[in-house]
């Protein structure tokens, strides 16, 4: 399979990368793990004049704990997230989501930043990161900005990244959540895109929920948060009926499409069941 030729750049620093991107404008594409970009170039969906490789930016591979937050470099691979002791200890649902991503070969190449910037509604890491209230840092020649990951997506493969910007870091703020879970239904284990998936984080206080975030993948043109379902849960006594109702509300708020992986009706059913199960799992984890 042919990859159209391009001019190759491998900057040594984020600043240098930003300067190159500022100069080249829309003629350049950023290359991280390559599992999406090279795939698109091979199937003829992308033919950039310039490819700007981030391979030398090792400072963006770190996963570290800072006062008040956990910071994940955008170039951390899926397997790096899966095997991170820090993330396993702090937010186990995130390494588990990274593990469902794809085959071992792809998980060694693909990066969390790429998974976010690619912007597809079936991405595995954005739902759980949004459930954990994560923010992202975008850097360009003009400076830096951060935004809640929740605000980053606005349509299928549409994100708010601007020309010349690089996603450099993902930040998870310390939080009161007591449990979180990512449940995905895919047609095969390896490399399977989600037919539907639900990510939740909960803050359990005795018999009720103080706070909850529910995020769905492959359930709408973009990854979505279902705040109606969230509101239905807060302050009420936790029982199976309550969780079933939240599942129903999540399904109502979803707008899945018919595709080769599943019909809209089937996906809506999946959303209902997955939301209910994910809530139960996160709540039980919260009690543990």
């Amino acid at each position: 399979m042919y990859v159209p030729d391009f001019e190759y750049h491998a900057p040594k620093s984020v600043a240098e990368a930003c300067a190159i991107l500022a100069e080249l404008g829309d003629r350049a594409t950023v290359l991280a793990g390559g599992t999406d970009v090279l795939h698109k170039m091979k199937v003829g969906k992308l033919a950039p004049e310039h490819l700007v490789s981030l391979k030398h930016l090792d400072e963006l591979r770190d996963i570290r704990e800072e006062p008040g937050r956990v910071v994940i470099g955008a170039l951390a691979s899926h397997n790096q997230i899966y095997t991170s002791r820090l993330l396993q200890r702090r937010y186990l649902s995130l390494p588990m989501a990274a593990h469902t991503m794809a085959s071992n070969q792809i998980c060694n190449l693909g990066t969390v930043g790429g998974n976010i910037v690619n912007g597809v509604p079936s991405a595995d890491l954005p739902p759980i990161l949004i459930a954990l209230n994560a923010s992202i840092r975008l850097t360009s020649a003009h400076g830096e900005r951060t935004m809640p990951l929740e605000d980053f997506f606005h349509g299928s493969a549409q994100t708010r990244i601007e020309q010349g910007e690089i996603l450099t870091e993902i930040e998870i703020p310390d939080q009161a959540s007591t449990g979180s879970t990512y449940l995905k239904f895919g047609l095969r284990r390896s490399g399977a895109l989600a037919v539907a998936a639900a990510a939740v984080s909960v803050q359990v206080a005795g018999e009720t929920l103080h706070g909850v975030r529910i995020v769905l993948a492959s359930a709408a043109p973009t990854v979505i948060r279902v705040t109606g379902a969230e509101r239905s849960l807060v302050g009420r006594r936790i029982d199976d009926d309550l969780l079933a109702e939240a599942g129903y509300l999540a399904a109502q708020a979803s707008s899945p499409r018919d595709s080769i992986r599943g019909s809209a009706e089937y996906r809506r059913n999946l959303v209902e069941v997955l939301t209910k199960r994910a809530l139960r799992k996160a709540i039980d984890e919260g009690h543990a």
Partner: protein
Amino acid sequence: MAQAITDKDGVKRYLITLNVNGDAHTLLVKGNAILTNVLREQLDLTGTKKGCELGDCGSCTVLLDGKPVDSCLVLAIEADGREITTIEGVMENGRLDAIQESMINHAAVQCGYCTPGMVLSAKALLTRNPNPSEQEVREAISGNLCRCTGYVHIVEAVMATAQGRLTPDDH
């Protein structure tokens, strides 16, 4: 960054070093050269197979710094300076690796096309985890598609290798 050389026709190539199976190779590659093709065509290491070429089938699996990757989704220039192990590098001192022996003994090879990738995925697993469960073996090779023998014999072969390693004199 790799040194760039432009020929008289204006085609730009980059000077890179690939450390393949312990040998350093200095090569001239175009920016768009895919690692699978460079291994096969420039280094004659045709044990690395081309299947789907889109990262689904795993027949192009190589170890990059010890980790399995689909070499069809890696630009050769991105692997500049890194350690690569192909199936040709698994044999040591003229002897097949225990996984290879075991796959022969368990008839885990039919057409053989997936075998190099299977061996490398299994090798990476056993290096990291010498005593895997069957589930862990299945997971480790889940990115390698076999379309003929099925997976039962392959999984048995890897499990037997792992168990054989409990007695180092065994092979």
